[in-house]
């Protein structure tokens, strides 16, 4: 059975997914750290910025 932290983490990640706030890859990365309380402020920023860079790279690739 999921722990309360795991239950809440699942819901949070699902909402991130629904609102397209993060890529699937980043959501997977966040999973365990989120419920274990291991995320630091810079980790949160990193996932968002990594997604942005990835998107920019993809956009640049398409335009070429």
């Amino acid at each position: 059975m999921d722990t309360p932290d795991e239950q809440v983490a699942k819901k949070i990640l699902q909402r991130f997914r629904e609102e397209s706030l993060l890529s699937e890859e980043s959501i997977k990365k966040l999973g365990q750290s989120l419920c274990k309380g291991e995320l630091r402020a810079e980790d949160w920023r990193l996932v968002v910025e990594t997604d942005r860079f990835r998107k920019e790279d993809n956009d640049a690739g398409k335009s070429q």
Partner: protein
Amino acid sequence: MPAKVNKIRLAGFRGATGSVEICFDTTKSVALVFGENGTGKSTIADAFDFVCNRGFGSLEDRSLSGQPAKSHLSALGQDPRNLRVFLSTSMGDFSASLTKGGPAISPPNGCPDARILRRSNILRLLNAQPKQRFDELKSFVTVPGIDKSENALREACRTSEEGLNEAVRACTQAKGELERLWVAEGSPGEDALQWANAEAGKHIAALESLVDAVEGIDDAFDDAGKDFMSLEIALDELSAARIDQTRAQEEQGRIEAKEPKGDEAILKLLRDARTLIAGRRPSDCPVCEQRIETDNLVARLDTRMSEMTELSTAMTTVSKVKRNVESKEVVVAQRRKDMLQQVSELAKILRPCSLSEVRTLNISWPEFQELLITPDVTEKLENKAREFWKMAKPCWTPLRERMETDRKSIHQRNAIKGHLETHTEQLKLSREYHALAQKLQRMLEIVSEERKGYVEGILDAISVEVERLYTALHPGEGIGKIRFYLKRTTIGSLEIDGHFQNVPGVLPQAYYSESHLDTLGICVFLALAKHFRTEDTIVVLDDVVTSVDGPHLDRFVALLHSEAKHFNQVIVMTHYRPWRDRYRWAKGPAAKTQVIELGPWTLQSGLQTVHFLTAIEELKKAVEKREFDRQAVASKAGIVLESMLDFITIRYRCSVPRNARNEYTLGDLASGVDSKLSKVLCCRKPPRPGLAKSDVSIKSLIDSATEAQWVRNCVGCHFHELGSEVSDTDVRGFAQSVLALADAMICESCGALPARRPSGSYWQCTCGELELHPLVYPGAEPGTIADEI
């Protein structure tokens, strides 16, 4: 396998000055540890906290003058190293000791999860401020991992906002600088940014080269000027040295004129002669070849030289100033060479220069051709150099002015470019930060919503459960509908409200009685423990019921037994004797309850357990005892009979003679069960295998017991001559008839009298197996729930 505690052994722990072992019957759903105040109930609860939760129990709630709780954990005067708590469970055995680092449990994992409720918890929960109340329930309702991640996310939002603010500030500042420069330039074009972009796009390489060239000319002028200066200084110094030399020579001539016997040549000759003669010591004079006396001649030479001291001094001075002049001449020669070199360099730089400041000089370069090659140091060239310097110098200041102006232009352009780059970079950065901050903020909202939603879900579920439990305890009292909720705007703050006399939204702690608050606290605890129970959870209630009236106590006991099925084990400590007596007199499910009685505490013995028996068990034991105590048996049987008749007469509202003290004799109670009731009074016992439920008429049993009630009066209560006439057989017979009545009326399964009314036609025991018919006295109106006393 569900966790069940078989026994707990304490040694040197709190009140357990000796070693004490308390065994638990794991077949019973509730263990009631009864003891009067100071018998060690909290010690047992604290021992559970120590071994199961590594906690310091009730000590954690007390002020200990700044000393740590663990320093008071060992029994009075005993070595903390000898403190032991041993727990034997269905999951294994666990041993706890006290170390410097705190409680040490062996093995460290697998111990049951003991949820311990003390009265202090209830007071804190209900009376505390919302934040403290939240802290009290935090371990139940928080998701610590999510909490930590949420805090980190909040910090990320904060730093991103700061980054955004900083980027916007830098961007605004750069724009402000550009506007200032734009205005200073007369606000050309449409706006400052457009102008700045145009300015930044201009090529300034030529200007920079020009400034570099002018800087080279300036340096050459500077160097040549310095060398001219140095040469002039050297010439002045040489001139002064020559004047000194002339003066010294004149002084020497004056002295020589004053002394006709001596001059520079003679003094020199004397000095040389003295050196030669003193050194070689010849026997004959090397000049006149006459025989000489060396020592005498040396002495004479010394005398003559001493007569020419003034001349000697003048000669030394002349020699010194001469050397000075020679030195200055060398310096002048070097300075001249340097000057020529620098002027030559200057000429070489100016020759190809096309700057107007230079062109307007109209220098006739052929005249200075010699300067343009590596110059020889000649007077002629020096004159040329001086002439050239005079011609060229006028362009130096205008060139410097041009250089400063051009430099300013370059600086301004660089400043524009720098500010423009800053503006562009910070604008980009602020957009990125804005997007980042927005995304993080939205993520924070989601995390916060989900966490709160989870907590509120728990609080809602708990509120519903609390309401159910509380209504069972306080039916029809106009209180309840307890609601726990979080304030939207406050973090870590738990609010509570409820109904009072059906008015909603009141603070229970402001309107409820103390006992109502106690039961509310217990309901909250049970609801929480139930919501978060695991297969390892056992519940320990440490003296949480203080003083409640009979009906509430009965309902509480019934509720506790009903809820006990949700937990592996419920262990209750109480000092409340009416609770313990409920089991003694079969007013509660004694068969499903293990009563553990604590005897008086002493320093020598510590905690002591006393064997508990129900009144029926005690009577049976007394009857079976080989050394038959007829008085005790008669007395006990009489009291049991009284309790049975008391139960029946109250249940059926029988007519019993009143007296001022509201006391009834056994005879009064016996006569209360009249023939009308006796005819219909029966117990319906659980079915035997293969048979239907069997009805047992109570009338004959009551008759049998009450017919012999005089035995109690004669043998068990008073001194009476007739007592001697009563045989042991009669006494035993009286007891047996009372026991037969008790056996018929008390459920074998739960050990309780049928005191509940689940239907409109009969009474029922706690477990529901035994029924007592009818529900009311024949022909009487059905009673109310309040009759369940």
